[in-house]
Structure formats: structure tokens, C-alpha cells
């Protein structure tokens, strides 16, 4: 799989690369979301806020200092700081109140992006963001201006982020988060400082959203307020639900399916969201484990059959 991704630029055209970059960005975004939802049991409707903080921070940095490394780093750090701050307030609640709080925080960020013209460019957004060279201190600067080069940047960063998240959810910390998801009171009595751990998960989810957001402006060369809107927060929710919330790879598969569904349906009709809606309803009604566990179950059954 990784091999295919590595040789992809020699096989596929610019559009496919663009699409794969989008899939990788949504994968990172969704993995962060699912650390909060699938692993810690908190449904956030405000992740677009941190995605936008990452994107705007990266864009502002790139407009001032043309260095992609600084742009990405700045986006991640500032988004994580924002998540730490707002998370401190958000994790006081759980369930619907948590969802409402995160929705409100996300929309506050949206209204800032929209109204603070001098800094964010208002509804025009920020334009002319350069795909600046990647200059990591101590290493020679690397031009990433071509789509192909930038693809590799996104690929390396995403794979690293995916690997780190994999380690995280399979670590003692990851287990503690899942324990909190299953029973808050029992986790307290296992000696876990529940609220602190929730804040950690929230901050990491915000960090991943910020990283995903920071990868966007160099690709699109612009940033506009709609990326902070709550309907953007819904994208990782949908991707994660599509792929499956209780499997590590669910959000990644879901991000792939999300863009495939969009890409295929858009060829026939501009109204692709209605079909996405139908799929969401069908998933919630019938296949809450998502696509990955559906196949996992089928594979397990096939294995059991062949054993006999």
C-alpha cells in the first residue's frame, strides 16, 4: 500500500495526486477526531476550528516567511495551543453538552475568520500563499513547488502522523483513554485523572486537526472562512463513520471512501451530498461498525469456515 503511494507520481496525473493529497489530509484530520470520539468517547463538532487555526497560522507564516517547515510547525503548535486552551473549558462536560460547547467554540473561530478582515482577509480569505521551500534548520532547503514534490511532503508527514497515532492508541495512554470511554467512574477508581486525560486527547486531536489544516494552504494557495464552518467539522465525522470508529484504520479508509464517493457521484450529478446523506443514514441504521469492521467480520467468518 505504502509502496503504491510512493511510486504514485510516476503512474498518475496531477489530478490524482491532488486527490490523494486531499485524502491524506482528511485522514490525518479524521484520525485526530477519532482519538477523541472512538477512543475517548467525546463527540466534537468543533474540529474545523482547529483545522482553520492550523491553516490560517500556516498561511500567515508562509506569507511572511517563505519556509514550509516553519509554516507547518507554526500551524501545528498554534492549533495545539488553541486546543489546549479551549479543551480546558470543553472537557468539563461530556455527551451532548460537550458537543454543544465544541460547536460553539468552532463557530467562534469561524466568526473570527469571517469578520476580522485585517488579519484573516474576511470572506475573501488569504490569497497568494506560496508553496514555499522546505527549509529544516541544519538541512539544505528543498524546493517543493511542483505538485509532485509537495505530494511527497504530505505523504511523509501523513505517514509519520499515522504511525505516531498508531503507537499512541496501542500504548498504555491509549488504553487509559479507552477505559475512560467505556466507564468514566470506573476509570477514576482505577486511579486515572479522567479530566486531565480527556484534555490530553482533546489537545492531540486539535494538533492533528491543525496539522491537516496547515497542509492545505500550500496546496490550494488560498484559505477562506468556510474551512472553519461546522459543516467542515462534519467531514472527519463522516469519514470516520464511513470507515468505522472502533478500528484504527477506519478514519483512513473512510477518508478514502469519502473522496471516492464524491469523485464518482460528482461525475453523474452535482448533488453528491444527498447520496452521502443516504449512505450516512444507511450506516447508522445498519452498519455502525463502518466498512472496515464489516469486511473484518466477513474475513473472520471465511476463516472460520475454512478451518472446518
Amino acid at each position, binding site marked *: 500500500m505504502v509502496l503504491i503511494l510512493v511510486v504514485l507520481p510516476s503512474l498518475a496525473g496531477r489530478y490524482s495526486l491532488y486527490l490523494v493529497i486531499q485524502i491524506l489530509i482528511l485522514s490525518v484530520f479524521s484520525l485526530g477526531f477519532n482519538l477523541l*470520539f472512538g477512543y475517548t468517547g467525546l*463527540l466534537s463538532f468543533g474540529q474545523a476550528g482547529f483545522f482553520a487555526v492550523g491553516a490560517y497560522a500556516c498561511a500567515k507564516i508562509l506569507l511572511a516567511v517563505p519556509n514550509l517547515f516553519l509554516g507547518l510547525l507554526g500551524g501545528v503548535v498554534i492549533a495545539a495551543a488553541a486546543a489546549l486552551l479551549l479543551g480546558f*473549558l470543553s472537557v*468539563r*462536560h461530556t*455527551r*451532548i*453538552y460537550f*458537543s*454543544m*460547547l465544541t*460547536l*460553539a*467554540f468552532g*463557530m*467562534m473561530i469561524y*466568526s*473570527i475568520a*469571517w*469578520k476580522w478582515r485585517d488579519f484573516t482577509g474576511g470572506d475573501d480569505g488569504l490569497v497568494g500563499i506560496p508553496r514555499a521551500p522546505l527549509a529544516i534548520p541544519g538541512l539544505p532547503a528543498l524546493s517543493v513547488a511542483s505538485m509532485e514534490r509537495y505530494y511527497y511532503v504530505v505523504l511523509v508527514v501523513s505517514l509519520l502522523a499515522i504511525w505516531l497515532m498508531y503507537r499512541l492508541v496501542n500504548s498504555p495512554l491509549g488504553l487509559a483513554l479507552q477505559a475512560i470511554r467505556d466507564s468514566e467512574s470506573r476509570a477514576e477508581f482505577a486511579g486515572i485523572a479522567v479530566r486531565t486525560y480527556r484534555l490530553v486527547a482533546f489537545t492531540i486531536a486539535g494538533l492533528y486537526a491543525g496539522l491537516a489544516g496547515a497542509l492545505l494552504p500550500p496546496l490550494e494557495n488560498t484559505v477562506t472562512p468556510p474551512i472553519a464552518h*461546522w*459543516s467542515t467539522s*462534519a467531514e472527519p*465525522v463522516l469519514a470516520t*463513520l464511513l470507515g468505522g470508529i472502533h478500528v484504527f484504520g477506519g478514519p483512513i479508509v473512510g477518508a478514502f471512501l469519502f473522496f471516492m464517493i464524491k469523485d464518482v457521484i460528482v461525475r453523474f450529478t452535482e*448533488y453528491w*451530498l*444527498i447520496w*452521502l*446523506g*443516504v*449512505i*450516512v*443514514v444507511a450506516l*447508522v*441504521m445498519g452498519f*455502525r461498525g463502518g466498512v472496515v469492521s464489516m469486511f473484518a467480520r466477513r474475513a473472520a467468518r471465511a476463516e472460520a469456515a475454512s478451518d472446518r
Partner: protein
Amino acid sequence: MDTIAFQGLIGLSLAMYLWLISAGLTIIFGVLRIVNFAHGSLFMMGAYLAFTFYGQLGLPFWLAILLSLLGVGLLGLVMERFFLRRIYSIDEAYQLLLTFGFILILDDAVKIIWGGVFKIPPIPAFLDGAWRAFGRPFPVYNAFVIAVGLLVAVLLWALFEKSWWGRIVRATASDREMANAIGVNVPRVFSGVFMFGSMLAALGGAMGTPVRVASPGIGAAMIIQAFIITVIGGLGNLKGAFVSSLMVGILSAYGTLFFPVFELFFIFVIMVVVLLVRPQGLFAR
């Protein structure tokens, strides 16, 4: 001074749309314990149906509104009876997601049926024109909206506090098992309440079309406003929803007057502060 009083009147009519949509949301949450993300889309459906019945088919205004209410009520019934009812027992996150799926479907369905552009039916002749209020022309239609909103408030109060039906619903809201034990058909109450709440949203949408235009994005905008109001008033608290509709409606009328840039921002600040300090709502006992 007159400007302030006049703006208050404008705010009052704005508050009535907010009241109608948040009343339905509140009743549904209060009884079913479901946050219906698609409630704004039901408001939007009400607006479009009213446009079709009144603006396109030329039916009488009252009949058009009545038909849109019935249409949306039926839609709500289908949503509850065939979808939500099957997943009451599982994690509430899935209920949110399911209603989110409905948003996607309804919003695109509207674009498919009515196209992506704004639709504005004419204001009915008997409600056209303006009265003078505080030295300025105040549209008669706005006064009509205020009257309908207040009437709905009175009727809801009478319904829930005074009628037999209201007592059944309140009993079901406070304790489903007990209600079930005394012979209340709980699933039927749920369907009825969901349908009723949907119709309130539709009423707001249908009445709004002649002045607020019907557009595909209106559902998403309204649901956020309705969330703000129900949170400030306290989830499931009908009186709270009424008071906070007035508050938000009037505040945003003044907000656009005094600090137009950060109006939206401040409303979300209020929502956050209420959630953090008084999650049961400002008007809870």
C-alpha cells in the same frame, strides 16, 4: 431614542422566528432526549413548501401555510417512525449523526427540486404595507409575525399546562417507564411529539418566506441559532426557550446596530458562558 425603540421592535419580530424553531427543538429534546440536527432543515422545508403552495400554485396564504405544516409534519413522522425509533437504545452520538445525515439529504433535495437560487413569494396583499412606529414605517407583516409567535406561545402554554394531552406528554418526558406502566403508549407519544415539533419549525419557515427568502443554506443557519437559544434557555426548557429567543432576537437587532462586526461572535460567547457556568440554562429554577 426612537431608533433604539424601533430596533427593539425589529428584534422582536426576529425573535419570533427563533422562538418557533427553538420551541420545536426544545419540545423534541424535552420528551425524546434527542437533539435533532435536521430541525433547521425542517424549517427550510416549511419555507420551500410555503413558497410552492403560495408563490407558485397561488393557493390562499392560510391554506398554503397549513399545507406546508402538514407536509413537514409528515416528513417528521417518517423520520421518527422509521429511523430514529430504531436507534433510541444506542449511544446518543448515533442519533446526532443520523439527523446529520437527514440534513445532507434534505438540503440537496431542496436544491434538486427548487434549484439553488433564492425564492421569495410576494407578501399577501392583506399583510402588505407599513404602520408608523417611532417615526418610521414598520411593516405590517412583521407585526403579523409577532402576533403569531405570541399566539403560539400562549397556545403551547395552554396545551402543556392545561390539557390532558399535555399532561400525558409531560409525564412521558419526566419518566418514560412510569408513563409506560400507567398505560401511555410511549412510542405513539414520541411520534406525535416529533411530528408536532417539526410542524412548529415548518411554521417558522413558512411564515418567513415572504420576508426572509427561502434558500438552501437557511437550514444550516437556523439550526445553529436554534442551538444557541435552546442552550441559553436550558435544553428541554420551553419557557427558557421563549425568553432566550426574545433575548437573542433583540440583542442581535441591537448587535447589528452597535457592533455589526462581532455580533455572531458575541452570541457564541454567551452560549459558551452559559454552558460552562449554568449548563441547565439561564432560566432553570
